């Protein structure tokens, strides 16, 4: 019986020693734990802070809100008042300059006007149908005038309307630096062309009005719906020459704040940064479908951090670049076209809006990668581990093979 049963049993395979495998597995786990688990019981290197800063009281927040409202009203009032009293100097070609605050010496005024004139010519402008006026509010000494401290970062524009079809006003507050420059006390390192660049950045939509006249209703409605974010700088230069672009404010993709900045933007803006045609089209045509009611008077305000509210990066120069790319005549036909914005813009560009914008975007930023992606190092490590595992299994299998 015993022999019969023994014959029935299959031949037992030679087993690898189990203990070795257990030891290898435990050792591997220990190595991984050593590499990834934080050390216990170690003293922190630096002092540990977790302090919280105080928040303003509700009463203080209300005072700040009222101050903001007053600043906006005051800026509007000043623009409207100044439009009534602006004096045009026939000997000059550039924008009229109106100063608010401390009185400037006549020589300083003449210098400023000369700089404004040369900036105007550099934009390719001369005698224009719509004239521009820059209201420069110089910094006041604290307590010298009633009311909240003026906002040094908020610029405002009063576009031509039925009351005055030929004047565009720009309100440009001068901070401590620019006030010193205008009063004739520039810092030693001051470069002469900085002032011209500042004026250029302060003209905003007024430069477009001067160059191309009043836009058609559809274009104006589109620009009003997006607070003119694609028509802030005319010409080929950015805010401070060619260096500054709102896209540069994102910083370096190696740092987390870059991605914080990216994902604070709207989905279509992000999609355009990633080089997606639909995203670029949507980012450009945001507001084009809305029949935005254009307020009279139309006062465009740009607040601090305006780049955060852009629907296209670097949108501030978008129409300026379109104009440069397609030429004056085609841009003029777009600007005054009664067709819907997407049709008029595509006709001027002679290609789909998304396609052109995608190529334009690539001049400033490499397309970002969206979606989950493993880092290269992690991928290589995973492949290495996989190769080791497969080799180990193959080796073990070959050793266990019964010949």
């Amino acid at each position: 019986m015993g022999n019969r049963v023994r014959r029935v049993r299959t031949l037992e395979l030679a087993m690898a020693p189990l203990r070795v495998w257990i030891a290898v597995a435990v050792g591997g786990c220990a190595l991984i734990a050593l590499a990834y688990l934080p050390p216990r019981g170690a003293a922190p290197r630096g002092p540990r802070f977790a302090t919280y800063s105080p928040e303003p009281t509700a009463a203080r927040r209300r005072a700040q809100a009222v101050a903001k409202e007053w600043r906006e009203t005051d800026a509007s009032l000043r623009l409207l008042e100044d439009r009534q009293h602006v004096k045009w100097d026939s000997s000059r070609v550039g924008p009229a300059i109106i100063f608010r605050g401390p009185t400037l010496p006549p020589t300083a005024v003449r210098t400023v006007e000369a700089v404004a004139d040369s900036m105007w010519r550099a934009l390719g402008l001369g005698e224009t149908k719509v004239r521009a006026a820059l209201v420069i509010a110089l910094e006041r000494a604290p307590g010298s005038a009633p009311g909240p401290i003026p906002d040094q970062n908020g610029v405002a524009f009063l576009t031509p309307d039925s009351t005055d079809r030929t004047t565009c006003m720009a309100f440009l507050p001068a901070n401590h630096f620019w006030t010193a420059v205008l009063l004739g006390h520039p810092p030693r390192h001051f470069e002469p062309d900085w002032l011209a660049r500042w004026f250029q950045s302060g003209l905003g939509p007024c430069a477009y009005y001067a160059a191309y006249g009043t836009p058609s209703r559809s274009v104006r409605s589109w620009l009003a719906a997006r607070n003119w974010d694609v028509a802030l700088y005319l010409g080929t230069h950015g805010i401070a020459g060619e260096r500054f672009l709102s896209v540069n404010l994102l910083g370096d993709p190696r740092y987390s704040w870059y991605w914080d900045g990216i994902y604070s933007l709207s989905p279509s803006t992000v999609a355009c940064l990633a080089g997606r045609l639909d995203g670029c089209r949507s980012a450009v045509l945001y507001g084009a479908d809305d029949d935005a009611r254009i307020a009279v008077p139309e006062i465009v305000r740009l607040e601090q951090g305006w780049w955060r509210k852009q629907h296209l990066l670097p949108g501030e120069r978008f129409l300026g670049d379109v104009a440069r790319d397609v030429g004056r005549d085609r841009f003029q036909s777009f600007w005054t076209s009664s067709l819907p914005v997407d049709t008029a813009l595509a006709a001027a560009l002679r290609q789909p809006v998304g396609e052109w914008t995608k190529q334009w975007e690539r001049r400033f930023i490499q397309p970002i990668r969206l979606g989950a992606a493993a880092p290269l190092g992690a991928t290589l490590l995973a492949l290495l581990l996989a190769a080791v595992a497969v080799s180990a299994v193959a080796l073990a299998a070959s050793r266990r093979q019964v010949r």
Partner: protein
Amino acid sequence: MFRRFGLLLILGVLACPLLGQDTLINRLRIRSDSLLRTWQQAVAIANLADSLERERATIGRDTIAVGALRIITNASPLPVRQAAALAWPAIDSLYGSAAADLAERPYFIRAVDPDSNARRAVLHVGLEVPWDLDLRSTTTLLLTTVPIAPPDRALATWLTGVLRPSIHPREDVGGVYLEFVTAPSQAARGCFMGDIASCIDALGLGDTNHQLERWYPSAPERRAVVTGSFADFFDHGGSAPALRECVAGRDASCTALLRSLPADVLPKPLSDAARVSLVRDALRLGGQDAYRRLLRDPEAAIADRLAEAAGVSVDSLVAGWRNAALAARPAPVELPWWAIGVALGWVTVFAGCGLSSSRWRL
């Protein structure tokens, strides 16, 4: 009659927009005045509310007094008194007689449950700190948030902030030594070599004309500044070709790029920490009233103010500061003699294991 009526009608139609604008301006003016009055009332109420909040922050709290320090805090395990006892000598030695003003400017510290799930009231005054901070962290907190009045704009700009007591004085001065030997600036190297005029230049205390040439006189230095600090900034738009030329070695492009920057953006050869350590030296030399003398004349040049505070010439002050920085040279890493033996021993052990092991068998 009809003609006259027509003329009036035309004039009326033409005047309508102007009248409309006048109405709008009047409306805005009324609104502006109304908002201004509302704002003045709101500010008065906000001041009152802030004052009440400060009063409320003191109710049921302890006031801890150590020297001129006043710390208003709630009962908690936070070691505030011990921390204040450690912090006060450092604060007193820095600000001298000006530290007495701190009796009028108390800290408000609210110690809270470190559990982030614990409910907390909104904080309007002072600092909120978890009560499990240790003594060292609490002392550091007191030193870094000394409620001293901020300095004038000129000094704050030169220092890039507010002067605070040092937490690691030895390391701070050692850091200056490292800057001497690593900064890509001839001014910093000249200072290291003992040229006091270079030190004054590198600290931004001398003539600020032609700062670029004074700080970075050679072409490699200027290229190093551009490529090291501004490569990303200049690598866009119209400045990108100039950057490429600069990287390729064209000094005129590097200079032009650096000139286009505002002066306060140009990297300083010696950092703000070096400036702070110089001010600390001046205050230490000047004795009890040094800080008050430093703040006395905001219009004076910083070098003169430092000399006035220290009671010595700026050259002597800077020379002493430089010597202190050289003396604080970080100690080089020294290998003990037995470490060599240990290293060789381990190498032998591993080599022996590798050579004597048998083939791995399953």
